[in-house]
């Protein structure tokens, strides 16, 4: 088996309505995170850290940002002679009515899995910021009785949202079903809920069988649905993850997850563990902090030029903050500029946003102001959260 023991599959088509307009032209997987990363770096790094060499990526409607980030996959050691990254083009949901397109959906998976020829397959989403040890999941899977393993984390109930996927755990510790939190049957008084982390681990042959039989059925069922059905049929092993987790499913969660990285403990736990998070590296010059700059409690990317004040903010690479400008409690993505004398509080600036001089733009922690990619803002009037 030249391509190792495990194949990985990532489907970048994930529900992203609650993250608009940030996901207007990119999938959740390429949302910038923590001043340096894209969300897909977390599953890809887990894949790299488990020495997985064969990865299938199912591209979203707008695949450009994915291709640009991924390139050869070298950043995650996926430019291997044996294996590598295989991308599959987007198929619009509405086209699944056509039996030909429908069979292509299953066929893409089946061909890829057969060719990879590994014993196991791991299926991961991209909307969870976490650092999963896939080898530990595999070891657990081998010890378990079920043919499929699910990964979850016990999360405080108040942090779980109605439409999050959760696991119904049996008293034996196995998963009996994957259900939305609002339909969860557990004791409502327990402090925690098992939040499903969108990770399945199973025998590749079982997955192929599942896909073959689905391709013969008259109606379309998405892989995620097939997997939930497989859990219902067989019960699943339930691997409990205890590391850092931030689910990114909405703007408030996205904002809070970035701000959480300003807590040194979170920053260290997620980014400086024995399993490093890899990302595409760029040739960028050092960031220059000028004489009157004042920066505290913030993350900064390279290539920046800072003259103003920054606090409690996540600043990506190549950002300019001019004299007497104040950036506070905000996320400023790559290539954005805040002009002299302007104040930006509780805001998210997508890539390439320009804020003109002497403006005051303030959102709230619950409802940050959002500026879309390349937006030019020269007056405060009309800017609303």
């Amino acid at each position, binding site marked *: 088996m030249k391509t190792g023991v495990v194949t990985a599959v990532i489907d970048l088509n994930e529900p992203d309505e609650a993250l608009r307009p940030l996901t207007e032209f990119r999938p959740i997987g390429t949302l910038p995170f*923590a001043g340096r990363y894209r969300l897909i770096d977390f599953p890809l790094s887990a894949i790299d850290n488990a020495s997985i060499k064969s990865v299938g990526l199912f591209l979203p409607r707008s695949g450009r940002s994915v291709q640009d980030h991924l390139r050869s996959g070298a950043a995650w050691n996926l430019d291997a002679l044996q294996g590598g990254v295989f991308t599959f083009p987007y198929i619009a949901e509405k086209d699944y009515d056509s039996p030909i397109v429908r069979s292509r959906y299953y066929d893409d998976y089946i061909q890829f899995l057969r060719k990879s020829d590994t014993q196991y397959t791991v299926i991961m989403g991209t909307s969870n910021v976490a650092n999963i040890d896939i080898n530990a999941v595999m070891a657990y899977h081998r010890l378990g009785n079920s043919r499929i393993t699910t990964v979850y984390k016990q999360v405080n109930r108040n942090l779980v949202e109605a439409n999050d996927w959760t696991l119904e755990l049996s008293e034996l510790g196995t998963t009996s079903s994957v259900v939305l939190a609002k339909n969860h049957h557990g004791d409502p008084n327990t402090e925690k809920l098992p939040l499903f982390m969108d990770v399945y681990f199973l025998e590749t042959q079982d997955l192929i069988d599942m896909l073959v039989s689905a391709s013969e059925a008259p109606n379309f069922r998405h892989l995620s649905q097939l997997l939930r059905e497989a859990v219902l049929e067989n019960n699943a092993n339930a691997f409990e993850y205890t590391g850092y987790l931030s689910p990114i499913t909405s703007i408030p969660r996205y904002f809070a997850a970035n701000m959480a990285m300003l807590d040194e403990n979170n920053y260290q736990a997620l980014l400086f563990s024995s399993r490093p998070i890899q990302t595409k590296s760029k040739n960028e010059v050092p960031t220059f902090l000028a004489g009157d700059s004042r920066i505290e409690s913030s993350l900064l990317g*390279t290539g920046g030029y800072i003259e103003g004040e920054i606090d409690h903010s996540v600043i990506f690479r190549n950002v300019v903050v001019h004299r007497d400008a104040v950036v506070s409690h905000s996320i400023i993505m790559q290539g954005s500029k805040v002009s002299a004398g302007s104040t930006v509080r509780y805001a998210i600036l997508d890539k390439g946003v320009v804020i003109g001089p002497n403006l005051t733009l303030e959102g709230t922690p619950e409802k940050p102001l959002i500026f879309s990619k390349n937006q030019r803002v020269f007056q405060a009037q009309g800017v609303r959260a």
Partner: protein
Amino acid sequence: MATEMLGMILAGGQGTRLGKLTKNTAKPSVPFGGRYRIIDFTLSNLANSEVNTVGVITQYQPLELNRHIQNGASWGLNDKDAGVTILQPYASSEGEKFFEGTAHAIYQNIAYIDSYAPRYLLVLSGDHIYKMDYRRMLAFHKQKKAALTVGVMPVAKSEASRFGIMNTDDTDRIIQFEEKPKAPKSNLASMGIYIFDWQILRQYLIASYATDSQLEDFGKDVIPTYLAHNEATFAYAFNGYWKDVGTIQSLWEANMEFLSPHNPLNIGDRNWRIYSQVSALPPMFLTASAHVRRAMVVDGDYIAGTVTHSILSQNVKIGEGAVIKDSMLMPNVVIGKNVVVDHAIIGENAIVGDGGEVIGKPDDIAVVGYGEILGRKEKE
């Protein structure tokens, strides 16, 4: 396989004047400017000048340099039929081929150069900080129908006696070369950048090694020989920023100049980027107690102390209460709490424990070597 101009970087020198910084590594691989190593400037100039075939001659402590260069992909110098080749001394049936000097190193690698059949040979050193388009120098070389063109830099008259000085006529032809003259007649200092007509140089080298009058060094032997034989030897004047970083003092100065937003090197110019091997480190973290001003910081840095007019390379940790001033810290340096670092260069992987002091003066820069570990007070 024909290449118009082949680049050769002489990266084998020991760099003794950098003291403990080059004890275990070659000078071209010494970190510079927060994100770079010295040789990145030469390699990037080559890539930006579309000189895609490059031999890097190494000899002294090459491990770190080899790791840095790898297959040249970081500079886009990994074309299938071109790219970077590391050339190390080797043993052969004629004996060991250690390099006795700059010209000797080229002589020892004639087979490599011939394999690309270049018309011109561009010889560079890997230890200068500058941005230069070698294509312009080649155009000059062709226009002058030169056998050898030497890159020169106008220096202050008072400084000229420290350099190899080229005296030229009004067509830029070199009529005299003086190594460190007491009474310099011109201010054109050799930058150690040469374009040779390869076939002519090849003949001179082979002829000299067939006899006892061996051409070991370009400055000492080859240029005088060319002049003596009346070969067309011209000086190409370069007017941009150029800095030799061969001493602790000049390395520190070049870093401090690099820090200025007005530095003529213009590192942010996206039309002439300086590339380096980059790794994926987390973004820099400035805590609530960080005070960072007039400083360059890069990814992986963690700063809880005060940093003024300094450069921090990747993965540097600065503890609370520490004060870093007018200094350059190389990658992976750890500075403990309440440490004072002033006018210093701290080598890669060095650790300065809590309360330690590393204090130099503007004309006497303090140096902590690679991997050195300093305890509480250094001066006791």
